[in-house]
């Protein structure tokens, strides 16, 4: 989990800084080029309706990717988010189905609460019992999916109350609710990471856990909290997805962990921890969303979409590595 990032060599530091700036601009540049190219390629791409669509389609993966950024910054990984999303979705959905639905706010909070609880279990196993994050969350991927199927009987939960569906389908002043939620999550995550002591701790733990510990940072609590935040955000994403698809689907979120990790990696956050930001994750998520939307608009086969997405991930990691390795 530890990594060597700082260097005493000033020449190397300068070169690294130059590469750093380049790689960061590279991602923004890639997004701008993509955006402009699609604007020319399809006349409706820039329409308000389409941009609203893109943001709404991005919001679920974006929320997951922001939580994933926290986890990866601490040097960890969470493979369970897709299953946790489904579990939280069916729990929330089960509360607002049928003739006597519960208050939608209650279902909303229940979904997030279940997610936070599952995240806390991951966090305890990883931070307190020192089991590798990959293994713990791989186990949770399977357990949470099993719990989802058990809870829902393997069937979708239909007939969700209209008040609950507002979380996925509603608008506030012309902006879809999922987009507003995503924006709030991003702003809070950004402020916490950049301007609070806790944010600095996250970077310190992922940068060098030993020196973080010796400088008095409660490393266990920091790691634990990152997984709990991830779990809560997976729950939030599950609630929104459920409200959007109008039924709680037990098979929802299959493979979503990979898209969330892809957004983080495309955004240049280092998989070994300590380096990265939610702003670039946001751009990473937007790149994935815009590619998928643009290729749909242009009528390109989804087979190409998968190839293009995969190629971008690999290129992003290549850029990332050139930033961190010796020149």
């Amino acid at each position: 989990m530890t990594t060597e990032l700082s260097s005493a060599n000033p020449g190397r530091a300068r070169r690294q800084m130059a590469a750093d700036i380049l790689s960061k601009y590279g991602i923004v540049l890639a997004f701008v080029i993509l955006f402009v190219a699609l604007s020319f390629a399809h006349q409706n791409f820039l329409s308000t309706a389409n941009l609203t669509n893109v943001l709404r389609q991005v919001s679920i993966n974006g929320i997951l990717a922001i939580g994933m950024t926290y986890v990866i910054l601490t040097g960890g990984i969470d493979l369970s988010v897709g299953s946790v999303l489904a579990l939280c979705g069916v729990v929330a959905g089960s509360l607002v189905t049928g003739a006597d639905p519960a208050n939608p706010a209650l279902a909303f909070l229940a979904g997030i609460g279940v997610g936070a609880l599952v995240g806390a279990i991951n966090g305890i196993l990883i931070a307190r019992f020192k089991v590798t994050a990959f293994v713990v969350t791989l186990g949770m991927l399977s357990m949470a999916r099993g719990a989802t199927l058990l809870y829902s009987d393997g069937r979708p939960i239909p007939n969700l109350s209209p008040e609950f569906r507002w979380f996925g389908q509603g608008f506030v002043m012309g902006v879809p609710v999922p987009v507003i939620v995503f924006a709030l999550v991003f702003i809070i995550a950004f402020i916490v990471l950049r301007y609070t002591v806790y944010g600095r701790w996250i970077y310190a733990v992922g940068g060098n856990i030993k020196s973080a510990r010796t400088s008095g940072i409660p490393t266990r609590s920091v790691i634990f909290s990152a997984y709990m935040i991830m779990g809560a955000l997976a729950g939030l994403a599950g609630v929104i997805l459920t409200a959007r698809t109008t039924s709680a689907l037990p098979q929802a979120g299959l493979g979503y962990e990979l898209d969330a990790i892809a957004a983080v990696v495309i955004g240049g956050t280092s998989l070994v921890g300590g380096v990265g930001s939610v702003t670039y994750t946001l751009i990473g998520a937007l790149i994935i969303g815009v590619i998928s939307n643009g290729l749909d608009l242009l009528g390109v086969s989804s087979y190409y979409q998968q190839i293009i997405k995969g190629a971008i991930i690999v290129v992003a990691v290549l850029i990332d590595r050139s930033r961190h390795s010796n020149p």
Partner: protein
Amino acid sequence: MAKTLLSRRLMLAALAGTSMVAAGFGLVGTAAAQEARIAAVVQSLDTEFNVLWADAANRHPLVEDGTIALTVLDGRMDALQQSNQFDTAIAEGYDAIIFVPVDINAGNDPVQRAMEAGIPVIGSNTLISDTDLYESYISSNDVEAGRILAESVIEKMGGSGNVVIVEGMIGQSAQVQRLEGIEEALAANPDVTVLEQRTANWSRAEALSLVENWLISRGGEINGIIAQNDEMAIGALEAVKAAGLDPAEVPVAGVDGVTDALLAVQRGEMMSTLQDADAQAQGAIDLAMAAIEGEGYEPRAAVWDVNGGEMAWDGGQSQQYSVPWVPVTADNVEDLLAMRQNQ
């Protein structure tokens, strides 16, 4: 340390031993009390249709009264997993295997192995490509489903206009055959143009995004949406509604008759055709029993003509049985929903 480890191992061994003995007794017990052991290898218990199928199978009268010991094995949408489950079922010496294959071609080989081991295999729902290997099979014709599906949309459109097609996972028998039926219907209606045709992998969330994007790229051109299953049709319907369009103006149709689709038909927002899980599952069990017991066996499922149903039993000796599709209409949707509550 060594001692605790040793004692833990001993404990584990003792535990394993006890459970094996218990399992052994269980097996002996069931073999004595039951006439038949049937294994059902299904696609995946993550999907609603397979769950309905398995529930229906477990509600077969002979399963309920203990004459048949039915084991449902979850293939987890993985052809290799199913192949392994066949090996297990063959080694365990089941009397018959009912098979809902994940893959149309990869399913041939396991069935061949079971046949060589002398275990009859009954096909149900989806089929393998080499149907000669089956003892018998019972399914609904997916080509016909595709045709009914496309015709329902075209009829609502008044026989002309532009459609988009949302396809299932490419290469699966349902995708291939339903498309064949859709194309037959399109060939018969030259005034209908296909604007877009893409897969959404049977997924509601994928279809939602796809159709949202099409509604942008194709503006007001889309007059109808043909989805190869209900999950995707519901995703398409949500996209239509989210775009502020009237579902009555842009007809959407799917296949399967999942609960959400029945509810949407009830609201008058889409069209669907029910795939009869009860008939396919319980019918398959009767066919398995006919294979085990021979010609004198009396079927128990309600679908057979001898029990007041629509399908000809033929003494259980035919090789192929075709379960009719049930178009979901405003008239029968209440009954179907009531039935679903009890499933």
